[in-house]
């Protein structure tokens, strides 16, 4: 599903260039639930942006679903984001004045071709995250957990092969966070691939596998789902 080889990326700030990714190689199979951990500045957001085709690497190779996107143009990247990837953000990023339903249909705007069943699909997606009773509420009328569930429904509407979540539980209380992770687990069970970035070990522990990013490199990889194996200081032993 995801095949990354020796990915490099640096950012230029004035005269100095900072290398954020220094050769990242990883593989994620379809149906896997993977977390990426790391301190802030470790490059995990950059990696997620590249995996999400929002950013292009300077070097290395990235194949998603068998297609090499290393040199794709804006139109091709946009189309692939629309069809293959669903994003879930820490801050939900919902349109404030739009109903849950309209928020969920947003990706349909940019899908190619005709589509007339958008509303029905959006209702189904909201139903899948348990929000069929909230379709006409605007975000300010929803709790944080509900807002994030709307965002997940939005990520699902184009039936993507990959869901990328950036600190999806970061703005939620423990219970809402657990609900979100339960939904993610169900999606994985249904065959979707899910990659999430977090610095919360409890969240990482709910995933199948955790990649630890440190100073632009993957320094550790371990199976998740066993909370007892998470060290106190946030350092994770090599599996």
């Amino acid at each position, binding site marked *: 599903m995801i095949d990354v080889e020796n990915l490099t990326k640096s950012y230029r700030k004035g005269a100095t260039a900072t290398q954020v990714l220094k050769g990242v190689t990883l593989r994620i199979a379809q149906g896997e639930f993977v977390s990426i951990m790391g301190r802030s500045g470790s490059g995990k957001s950059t990696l997620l942006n590249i995996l999400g085709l929002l950013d292009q690497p300077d070097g290395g190779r990235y194949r998603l679903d068998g297609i090499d996107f290393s040199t794709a143009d804006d139109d091709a990247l946009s189309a692939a984001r*629309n069809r293959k990837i669903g994003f879930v953000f820490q801050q939900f990023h919902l*349109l404030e004045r739009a109903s849950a339903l309209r928020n969920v249909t*947003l*990706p349909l705007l940019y899908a190619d071709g005709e589509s007339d069943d958008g509303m029905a699909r959006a209702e189904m997606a909201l139903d899948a995250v348990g929000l069929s009773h909230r379709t006409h509420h605007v975000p300010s009328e929803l709790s944080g957990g509900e807002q994030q569930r709307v965002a997940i429904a939005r990520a699902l509407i184009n039936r993507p092969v990959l869901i990328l979540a950036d600190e999806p539980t970061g703005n939620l209380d423990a219970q809402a966070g657990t609900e979100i992770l339960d939904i993610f687990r169900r999606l994985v069970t249904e065959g979707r691939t899910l990659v999430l970035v977090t610095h919360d070990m409890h969240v990482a522990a709910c995933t199948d596998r955790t990649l630890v990013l440190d100073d632009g490199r993957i320094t550790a990889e371990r199976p998740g789902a066993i909370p007892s194996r998470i060290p106190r200081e946030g350092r994770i032993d090599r599996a």
Partner: protein
Amino acid sequence: MTRSQRIAADVCASLRAQTQRTFLMLLGLAVGVAVLSATIVIGQGTEERIMGLVAKHGLDMLMVRAGGEAQVFAPQADRGLAVLVEADARAIEADIPGVELVSAVQNQRDVTVVHEDRSVTTRAFGVEPTWLDIRHRDMAEGEFLSEGDMAAMARVVMLGAKVARGLFPEGGAVGRTVRVGNDPYTVKGVFIEMGVNAGGDDWDDRLVVPVTTSSRRLFNRPYLEQIVIQVSDVRRMPETAERVRNLLRVRHAIAPGRQDDFFVRESEDVENAAVDTSSTVSALSIAVAIVALLASGLVIMNLMLAAVSQRAREIGLRRAMGARSSDIARQFLLESWAVALAGGVVGVTVGIAVATALAAAGVASSRITWMPFAIALVSCTVIGLAAGLLPARKAARLDPVVTLRQRAA
């Protein structure tokens, strides 16, 4: 729905969701378009009213009279005023641009017309067939003289309403024979009643014969008292009058410094002044409207630029959801265009309502045509797209990676 239709629908939905901002954006444009369309509607109403006056009072007529400034009637030759001839009329017709119709005119007072035991003494005119249109007259019964009558120097006569009543109190004048001077004439038509005009002339107390008939038979002289001319554009009356004057000076071989032996009169100078005044007012309000439109274009552009900054996160989100940068540009262009069009619709409606109300109150004339709608459509499209261009470009160039990282406002 296609992708473009979906994006357009989304733009409309987001404009509706932000009614206050949308209203502010379209307000200036609505004012500009309102002023513009009210000006156009009133301007066209005024134009129509003027054309009505032209038709009613013969405002589009130039009259050349023999004898300089002196107001003298026949017999001309005795007074040394035998200067205007048929050839002058033909030269004006042929050589002067802006001349629509020309008629040579002879007239003479105290011509007696007799039918059986009744007789009326009136003023007789010899004219050409074009005279009817030039003087904006019409026939109540029968017909006006024809080219055939001209060629044949026919003894036909058209009677003013009063003359006809005097001779034929029971009506039925057309086709009857009357005696004019010493000869029998057939009554060909009767004019509709005109009443006494502002100069005190009673147009119902007239009779008209072909100018060929009057010059060869009735008056038996070649000289004309008048040449009447219809101009094609009332607003260029002074120009045309000057051309006529120059032509006749040349034809009459009048040396520089010598006085004209004819007089060119423009009819109804007062009305011409009214045309000038109203066009000045129109020009002023059109200038105001254009300033308002340009200012509102700038307002829209600024609000759109601000919106790009405020909605940077939304733009980033849309990019993440698969929007191409061209989709983002299109969204902002569509948005400013839609706002501008909405402003145009409001403006045209208000402008026409105001103009109609003013017309109903008797303050102005109004006439609604397609023009304000077309102008509103075109100007709003131009302004909307021009104002949206810069914001659209700015929005399209935003980096989603950067904007998505911004905290919620």
